């Protein structure tokens, strides 16, 4: 045993306690990150399908307002999360990848409406991949 104060058994007990708390942190982080990413993926895909469904009757000028409201809603939702734990690099890469998919969908969809459901599925896949990545 060590010379005094703190022995191996106590060190093991402290490490076990720390590991239990870290595991609880990892569970909470994974749960809320997956929930947020999948939720954002579902709503962003749904928004593209809405565009597809009503674009023949609605002026494109309204899409700016529509997406402004969506972004505000998600910012509010993110703020309500009891845990924030999405790694910054994953967050940035996901937003960049989704922006590319979204931009292409909107650009191509004007002339080829079939691009909307394909883009919605591809966009959701980006968020689902991020959810898988943080929860793995």
């Amino acid at each position, binding site marked *: 045993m*060590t010379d005094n104060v703190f022995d191996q058994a106590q060190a093991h007990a402290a490490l076990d306690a720390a590991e239990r708390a870290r595991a609880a942190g990892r569970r909470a*982080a994974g749960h809320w990150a997956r929930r947020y990413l999948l939720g954002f993926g579902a709503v962003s895909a749904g928004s593209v399908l809405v565009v597809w469904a009503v674009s023949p009757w609605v002026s494109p000028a309204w899409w700016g307002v529509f997406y402004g409201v969506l972004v505000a809603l998600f910012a509010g939702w993110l703020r309500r999360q009891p845990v924030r734990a999405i790694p910054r690099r994953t967050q940035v890469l996901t937003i960049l990848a989704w922006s590319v998919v979204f931009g292409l969908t909107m650009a191509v969809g004007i002339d080829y409406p079939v691009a909307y459901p394909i883009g919605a599925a591809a966009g959701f896949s980006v968020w689902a991949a991020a959810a898988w990545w943080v929860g793995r």
Partner: protein
Amino acid sequence: MGGRRLVGGAVTGAHPRHRLDALIHAPIRLSIMAFLAEVDRAEFALVRDVVELTPAALSKQISTLEEAGYVTVEKGYVGKRPRTWLALAPAGREAMARHLAALRAIADGQSH
């Protein structure tokens, strides 16, 4: 900002116990720090539930960690409800890493 506090009163020494951080050494504070190490930030109520403390007791521990510069506290509102967010500061992450390394060294039976 608090400096490094060491268990056993000694500041230097070969045994890994000299590298333990007295502030983190308390089981409750160790649990709080370990939980926060896994997230960017967490709501006060969630940490309270995980470490199974009363709000007053958690507040006291958080104040101690905040004074040492190990934890940051951010207060705000979600709608009309007040919220308190807790996060591990960079100094807290470093202190936690040092403390865990010292614990592992002791657990492995190292004497220096």
